[in-house]
């Protein structure tokens, strides 16, 4: 299928078999299905292999600092609410370096989608543990094996009453794409944690492992926060799908009264003169 978001001849820096290829496909197909034009789309990322995603499709992009993608994304959406704003970054970026922004962006609730490419390892820096690496995995830095319990992004998000929480598998384009479309259409901050294999540095959590150790939620009430939380705590076999949606939360832009593009704003100079002259 030809997609107007395709970047012809771009040099992709990912390794063969990387889960990022699946994620790129999911992103492009979801955007295509929703007819979102590149000029009205901004992809924001930090640093890491996942953070290179915006370079591989036709879009406006803000590829900023490690861990900080959510902050500029929030600023961009507030300043021009007509744009579709998505953050595509990795587990180290969003859950490690940017953990504080992750927590507070959930609270702030900007109307953006946050895709977290979660391969449970650091790829770009060559194989150290990430916040989601499972206990026991040995790496060149964690030589005795990882001892910290993995970070549970979904449980944290649901505990903070995140307005949209889902998990998908990069290997399942069809179902993942539909979930992403719902996230894009959802009003508020949407977290999508993505199971993604790293064939070079994570020999445990492979394509097959993710397939074997996950299942899709069925007959799950997405409005029930407690049940969603319980599902988020499941680790033996990890649930996939939409865990939780809260449609009642106001977005950051609504709370801030952001309706149109800031670049159209004009300063009311006469009013400013009046205000200045009243400070006596």
């Amino acid at each position: 299928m030809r997609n107007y978001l395709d970047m012809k001849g771009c040099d992709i820096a990912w390794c063969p078999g990387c889960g990022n290829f699946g994620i790129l496909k999911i992103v492009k197909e979801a955007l295509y299905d929703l007819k979102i034009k590149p000029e009205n789309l901004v992809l924001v990322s930090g640093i890491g292999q996942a953070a290179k995603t915006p370079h591989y499709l036709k879009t406006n992009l803000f590829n900023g600092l490690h861990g900080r993608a959510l902050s500029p994304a929030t600023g961009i959406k507030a300043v021009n609410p007509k744009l579709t704003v998505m953050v595509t970054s990795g587990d180290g970026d969003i859950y490690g370096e940017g953990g504080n922004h992750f927590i507070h962006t959930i609270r702030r609730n900007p109307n953006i989608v946050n895709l977290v490419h979660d391969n449970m390892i650091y790829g770009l820096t060559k194989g150290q543990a990430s916040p989601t690496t499972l206990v026991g995995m040995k790496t060149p830095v964690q030589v005795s094996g990882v001892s910290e319990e993995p970070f549970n992004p979904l449980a944290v998000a649901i505990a903070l009453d995140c307005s949209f929480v889902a998990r998908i598998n990069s290997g399942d384009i069809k179902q993942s794409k539909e979930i992403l479309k719902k996230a894009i259409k959802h009003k508020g901050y949407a977290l999508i944690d993505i199971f993604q294999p790293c064939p070079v540095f994570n020999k445990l959590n492979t394509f097959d492992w993710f397939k074997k150790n996950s299942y899709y939620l069925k007959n799950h009430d997405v409005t029930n926060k407690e049940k969603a939380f319980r599902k988020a705590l499941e680790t033996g076999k990890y649930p996939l799908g939409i865990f939780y949606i809260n449609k009642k939360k106001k977005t950051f832009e609504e709370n801030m009264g952001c309706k149109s593009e800031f670049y159209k704003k004009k300063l009311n100079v006469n009013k400013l003169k009046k205000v200045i002259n009243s400070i006596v």
Partner: protein
Amino acid sequence: MRRKFLDDVSIVLAGAAGQGIQTIQHLLTHILKSEGYHVFAMKDVMSRVRGGVNSTEIRICSKRVSAYVDRMDLFLPLSPEAMKRYGHRITNDTLVIDEKKIPMSKIAKEFGSDIYKNIVAVGFILGMFKVEKNVIERFVKEYFKDKPKFIKNNLLAVGKGYHIGKLYSSKITIKIKKDKKIAKELYMDGSEAVALGAIAGGCNFVSSYPMSPSTGVLVNMAKHSKNFDVLVEQVEDEIAAVNMSLGAWYAGARGLVTTSGGGFDLMTEGLSLSGMIETPLVVHIAQRSGPATGLPTRTEQSDLDLALYAGHGEYPRIVLAPGDAEEAFYLTQRAMNLADKYQLPVLILTDQFLVDSFYNLPSLNPTKIKNKQYFVRTDKNYKRYKFTSSGISPRGLPGFGKGLVCVDSDEHYEDGHITEDHSIRNKMVEKRLRKLEPIKNEISPEFFGNSKYKTLVVSWGSTKGVVKEALEKLNKKGMSYLHFKQVWPLPNNTLNYLKKAKKIIVVENNATGQFAKLLRREFGIDSEGVLKYSGLPFSVEELVKKLK
């Protein structure tokens, strides 16, 4: 002996936090300004919410001043601790207004609470100045309008103080020249001047984290936010503040971040990002005594080096340093436009002394400087980092035009996508650095004094008022003064001024002479330093002594 005040009275009020020093300052300065006096007020507060000793120094003058003096003409200690902390500044000429002169506590207790002591003192001082009683009452009513049940007692208390002050006024002479025009002048602190300057410069987005002494700017932006449609968000940390501001500028806002040295430390990676992606950024840094937590509520000019060198890699930046509230307004407005014009970070260096001090100013005109729109509508072939002779590539906004706006913290091609091509790298470095040269013609230093000088006193930022006043007092023919508002890049005509002097004295509120070192680095010129780093601003007296 009968005391006479002909040009200048300095009043120092001191007491515990919570004793209403701010109320006294507000009422005295507003009322005396409305009488036609020049007023200047500066705070000296401890980093605590209750107790300790806070003070405010108010100068009532026939001329416009913006400096601190050691001299205390009237001293009003509201607590025994205040006497201990400021007692060393009492001289034979100081009129100490204590319980012996006026039984403030006793009077206050008549109204059921010690809290009225401060308002009795206000009445006393205004009685000495022979201000009309109805004027005082008007201001008191206005000040307490949101607390109507306290108005009656405050009016009675101020009246009692006033009565005693008026009787006392037979023992002193206050003949400071008044000018009716001053009553109509503006009166604000440095924080509000920075905030209004930002608004005048089109600022419509503020993301910041509170930190003394920069919080005043954040509070003032919030205060004016509804009037001027400014989004003000208190973010989770300084890192979020700077990155959110970059997102906002990228998408078409004009952003302001306000912080102090410690907060700015956290922003430095974001500063580097601004340099790389050529997205404008304006950060106001209200300096305080460092390092680390330092003296959180005290002043210093010790973050110049930080502002000059913060952030990894090489990229151009602008550093501005206003000398008083008026300059704070115009330079902040300029900062918004300069950031947009040159697509780089602009840092505004103020300090606790400047932002917390109150000044009367003739006027502030938001149309004196023209705000310009620099962003462009993009077409299909738009390239964010197009090579140009000026180094400035037209800045598009996402969603404004048919083009794509790609910005990347990696080295990039003209279209914004990642590259590791060394020839492109060279061209991009050179393109970014080319932007610096024309900025040297933007804001010239201000010269005071005779153009034939042997000694040139040099300073930057908030020391302007004290240097000017000290030099006027000294009145030395061969000594002139050069005040820098743009401290980086150093303006083109700087060397002409420096070359003419036999001796250069650089006055700085820091311990290592940072600006002097910058002059040596850039021009190979040596200078003598007059430095102060106690946490307090220079006083006129000590500078007179040091420049003699």
